[in-house]
């Protein structure tokens, strides 16, 4: 198998919740030392990770840091390298979402999404890559919205398309050194970020996201782990998401666009009539 050997040290941003925590749990179970980088550190979560680890000698540690602060992140990563060792697997999971139709989306919300999702990926990659050696792997968690746009997702799509662009360049630059780059593009997964978003999701976004399917956290984590184990460059968890990826590549834009536009139009028309009925 082309895949890497099991990583014995794993650095994860956004590892206190959602996909990041799901992955941290699995690698803790498999016996890896774990360093988590997140905005807030929850001691209960750390204790849970310690409880499920394979060996008592495994180090589970966490650093409170904002991924948008490149210097602080770099320092935290250096501390983790001293505490554990250089990462054999580095996963960037930290991400945020601000969904709103473009004209209503405030510029500072847009910037914030770019800062965390895209510049955060850059900062993490820049912090870990100098420590990484041949055979190790950097995984950037992008999204299906990194290759297929979604209604009211202007900022999120821009940030996640950007992550894909960044990842593709990094792969080209680091392949000669034996460091692999994986781009992870999950569809909707029930994580705290998505649960927050569901509170007022645009109906057109909802319909389009249904095309990519929704996965439970366990399903998504299992699929991502399998992709990382197999050493895949692009990891797309879920059958519907894979189908969407396939369509976005092989169907002509004109057809994809027409399908999407029809869905959006029907949802907008329905919203319009509901609003008309309400007034």
């Amino acid at each position, binding site marked *: 198998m082309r895949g890497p050997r099991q990583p014995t040290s794993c650095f994860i941003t956004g590892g206190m919740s959602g996909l990041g925590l799901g992955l941290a749990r699995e690698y803790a179970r498999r016996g890896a030392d774990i360093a988590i980088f997140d905005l807030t550190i929850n001691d209960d979560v750390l204790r849970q990770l310690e409880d499920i680890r394979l060996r008592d000698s495994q180090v589970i540690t966490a650093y409170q840091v904002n991924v948008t602060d490149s210097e602080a992140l770099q320092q935290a990563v250096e501390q983790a390298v001293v505490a554990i060792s250089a990462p054999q697997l580095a996963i960037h999971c930290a991400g945020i979402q601000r969904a709103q139709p473009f004209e209503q989306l405030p510029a500072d919300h847009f910037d914030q999404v770019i800062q965390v999702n895209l510049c955060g990926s850059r900062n993490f990659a820049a912090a870990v890559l100098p420590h990484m050696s041949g055979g190790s792997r950097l995984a950037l968690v992008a999204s299906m919205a990194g290759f297929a*746009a979604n209604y009211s997702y202007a900022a999120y799509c821009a940030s996640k398309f950007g992550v894909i662009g960044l990842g593709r360049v990094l792969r*080209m630059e680091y392949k000669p050194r034996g460091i692999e780059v994986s781009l992870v593009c999950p569809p909707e997964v029930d994580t705290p970020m998505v649960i927050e978003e569901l509170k007022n999701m645009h109906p057109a976004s909802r319909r389009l996201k249904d095309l990519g399917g929704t996965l439970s956290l366990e399903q998504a984590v299992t699929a991502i782990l399998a992709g990382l184990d197999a050493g895949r460059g692009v990891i797309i968890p879920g059958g519907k998401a894979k189908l969407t990826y396939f369509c976005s590549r092989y169907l002509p834009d004109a057809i994809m*666009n027409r399908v999407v536009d029809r869905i959006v139009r029907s949802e907008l028309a329905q919203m319009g009539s509901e609003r008309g009925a309400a007034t």
Partner: protein
Amino acid sequence: MSSRKIVWITGGSSGIGLALARHYARSGCDIVLLARDPGKLQNAAAECSALGASSEQVISGEPVDVTDSENLPAVAEGLIAARGLPDLVILSAGAAANDTFLDTPPAVFDDLMNINLGGSREVARAVLPGMCERGSGQIAFVCSLAGLMGIYGYSAYSASKFAVTGLVQALRQELAGSGVDIQLVCPPEVDTPMVAAEAAHAVPQTRFLKDLVGTMQPDVVAGKIARGIERRKSVIIPGFRAGLMAWCGRHFPGLFERGSALLLRWRFK
């Protein structure tokens, strides 16, 4: 208002923007060039006026920094009030940086994001409400082939241009049926001042990969872009080799990446 088409071009004082300005001047449009340097703007506006098809055409330059989010909305509003709402806005202001990832400082990364992504976004935001209300208009985002595929040495540039691609795809969905067309323009390397400035310290791997696609002349590219804009194509990739490259990258991304990796290894062993 006159019946002449009103065209705004950001980054219109040089490179692809200026070449497009010359093209639209010859086709008899009223033009507003938006760029930072007042001197270069004046020269560009004079050059375009001399090419104008009729003496009634109004061609002028407006000094503005597209990343200046405080000033930009007021400038755009003033222009709309004075000259009318544009029919076509071409977002051509951009910057590039060619360096390997760890040699690209975070500040450069942020700058490219602000100029390439943020600047285009803010100009689009300034004209969209008017265009939507009128029910017509075109906004062409000048992105890059590097916005569709990763290129060695372009981590910051590709990230910013991929982000533009994502923004454009999302916007296109939102504006479908509104009468406003959003277009994505992905040229290969074009012989412009931006590229010339970069050539002095280009990363050899980048140079090698870009030579596979070739360099186009600004006027040739502008002609092809203008034709795509006229045909209201949603994605415009000027040049046969660029089109082929984009096609391969999209349909066979794995093969394409392995191929480029092999070529790079063969050339830079």
